[in-house]
């Protein structure tokens, strides 16, 4: 990371200006209300975070000296040092443009009778759900009011683009599907700043490849988000969730989060193993949310997958040979200069 090579751009000047910024940038990543902790340290998000913290530190340094300034500077230096340590060896010398999506919010159009909503990428889930609720519709992931579940609160505060980036499990997935099932289409920027659309604005469509579905879970590495089209559901007829809160995470708990999905036949064993670690579970998808000490593991099962925080490159690790090869080919075709959020999956040769 070269100091001073990060710039924050607020996406408030329309798509044309944004297109130009993307076209001219070497590395692009999003900024806004998002999940911390799940990313790998090699992610451009980390380089960008360092750059932004350095800018804050430099701004403090220009202020007159005071005890508060000293405290904040010390705090920033500690944070910077930790991030630098994590990122060491993973960054490159390219400048990073961080595009703040907090101004790209709101519904573009919504028809309750067609069950279709188009929403700008920076919209927070909470705000979207409020708008949909006025016409009796919803996106069927549990709200905190509906469930009282801890993860529901976390989700509501996130932007839809970041929820799509991660495609994390939620408490109604077994009954109503995942983000991938509700996403009908998308408008995105390509690395050259051109805009492309994929999917459609209707609930059923097989024209062309389902590229929008591949964007779900791609962690911002393939395209840059503009708008998403979702299928909505009648709020009144949402099925019951089988998600359950086992315990609440304490404020001082520093353990890493461990999300694991297994096959149904393995689920009873997962629940029996170190039950005190489990925060939440969803029997409908055989998924648990647990905490483990950084670096520690719970048992793994055939065909399962794990997402975690606090474990550096192990936060997400793709090991299947065919999958890794195809992901590299995908990245090479859609983002040949590795502009969009590089390092997120560790796809660079020899790293995965």
């Amino acid at each position, binding site marked *: 990371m070269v100091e001073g090579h990060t710039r924050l751009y607020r996406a408030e000047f329309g798509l044309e200006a944004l297109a130009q910024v993307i076209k001219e940038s070497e590395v692009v990543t999003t900024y806004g209300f998002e999940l911390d902790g799940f990313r790998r340290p090699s992610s451009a998000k980390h380089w960008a975070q360092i750059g932004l913290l350095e800018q804050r530190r430099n701004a403090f340094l220009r202020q007159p000296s005071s005890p508060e300034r000293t405290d904040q500077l010390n705090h920033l230096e500690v944070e910077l040092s930790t991030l630098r340590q994590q990122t060491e060896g993973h960054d490159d010398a390219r400048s990073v443009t961080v595009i703040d999506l907090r101004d790209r919010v709101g519904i573009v159009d919504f028809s309750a009778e067609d069950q279709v909503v188009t929403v700008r990428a920076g919209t927070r889930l909470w705000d979207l759900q409020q708008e949909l609720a006025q016409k009796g519709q919803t996106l069927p992931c549990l709200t905190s009011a509906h469930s009282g579940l801890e993860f529901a609160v976390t989700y509501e505060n996130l932007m839809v683009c970041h929820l799509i980036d991660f495609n994390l499990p939620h408490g109604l997935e077994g009954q109503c599907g*995942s983000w991938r099932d509700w996403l009908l289409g998308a408008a995105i920027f390509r690395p050259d700043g051109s805009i492309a659309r994929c999917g459609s604005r209707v609930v059923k469509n097989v024209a062309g490849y389902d590229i929008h579905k591949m964007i779900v*879970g791609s962690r911002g590495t393939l395209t840059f988000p503009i708008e998403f089209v979702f299928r909505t559901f009648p709020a009144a007829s949402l099925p019951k969730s089988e998600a359950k809160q086992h315990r609440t995470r304490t404020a001082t708990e520093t353990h890493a989060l461990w999300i694991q999905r297994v096959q149904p036949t393995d689920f009873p064993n997962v629940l029996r193993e170190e039950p005190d670690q489990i925060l939440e579970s969803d029997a409908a998808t055989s998924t648990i949310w647990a905490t483990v000490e950084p670096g520690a593991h719970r048992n793994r099962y055939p065909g399962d997958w794990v997402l975690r925080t606090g474990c550096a490159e192990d936060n997400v690790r793709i090991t299947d040979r065919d999958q890794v090869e195809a992901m590299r*080919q995908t990245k090479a075709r859609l983002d040949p200069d590795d502009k969009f959020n590089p390092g997120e999956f560790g796809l660079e040769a020899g790293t995965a």
Partner: protein
Amino acid sequence: MSSATVDRQFIHDLGLILDPGRVLEGASIERAYDCDAYTIDKSPPSAVVLPVSTEEVRDVVGYCIEKGVPFTPRGAGTGLSGGALPALGGVVIASKRMTQILSIDIPNRRMTAQTGAVNKRLSEAVAHAGLHFAPDPSSQTVSTLGGNIAENSGGPHTLKYGVTANHVVAVKMVDPRGVIRTFGTLTTNAPGYDLVSILVGSEGTLGIITEATIKLTPNPTAVATLLIAFAEVRQATETVAEIISRGVIPAAMELMDHGILDALRLAFDFQYPQGSKALLLIELDSTLASFEAKDAVAMEQAIVEDVCQSHHALEIRVAASEAERAHLWTARKKGIGAMGRLAPTIVTHDGVIPRSKLPEMLDFVYATAAEAGIGVANLFHAGDGNLHPCLYFDDRDPAQVERAIRVGELITHRCVELGGSISGEHGIGVEKLDLMHAMFSPNDLLLQSNVRQIFNTGSLCNPCKVIPNQKSCVEHRKRWRGAAW
């Protein structure tokens, strides 16, 4: 090498790779495999092979690549957009002998099967456990798992249960380089790029899927099936939108118009209330525990009946038994077949619109067909807004064929103008290649093309499908049409 340059030696060598009995050729084979159920365009293959395993598919593909011969995968040939048309000739790789169910895991609700297995058989194999494979295209008694995956097939019950993409978790395939690859996991939504979502619905252009692991869905514990007659098509279409906006999502909501009713009367002497111009077939179901399920379905049924009555339904028939349910479905299932009474040729179109635009769209369909002097009847998945205007005409008359094609194009363009899609479940194939421009901009198509190149950078694997204006395809298009006439 085009089909014209496939020589005796090539055919002989295919026989060594498989065995001679599983390499078919000759005039009758060319005729049988020169199109699928989209019969307007035709192009004969040089040979048809019947592999029994993924490894044999790999060997055939490898040999085709070595000799520069195009190859096209084919299931049962029930596709309605020409996806299995051997556009540049060459070898058709048919999955007829790849019909094994490889494993069934009832507790985890998963099944792995070869892709030549027939859709209906998959459900029958797990019926004893109260499970089924949810996608139920009308062709399900003959169409194959591979064909369903290639076209991302739907069916009446996809309104609630989703299309094939929602039910495939992993695939094994032979890619266009002749390499066996596997994608997906037994558990859903694993981290990483979702390549299975790209492969499902790719119409065989990204490789040949030879095995798939699918989800098994519990059978409903309570079902209510209603057949509602209306005096006007518009009353039925308005009913559809209102049912959804009242918060009810039926398992199926199918609409049949007066053209279909006439055909059913002629073919099977089916009787409907005096003055019926449209029928809505609505199925409500629940997979809750049985005591809760009955209540849930009864509550939805009350809402549906209320909406239907407010739109002046002439009659609401409710199935009182499984036999009656099957009888009510007969109208839907035999509708297309019955149309054979109306004309020698039926072309079933496929387009999607926002369901709130159904009344406006159907008015357009009737007016456009009438203006062109082409007959039209409609039988479609109204809940999804997935239209299937069935044009009937005589394909021995080239002028009628041209007019029918024109009507189809106008209907498809109108779907796009109303915010919809050019295909809801039949795919693009060769039929709608030119119409991709109506729905997608050049930038959108470039993105599609880039995605194709993730797997397929050549021009041998099912060429001339999905992406318009592919090199070496444009000049062949007239030939396909000429063959049909």
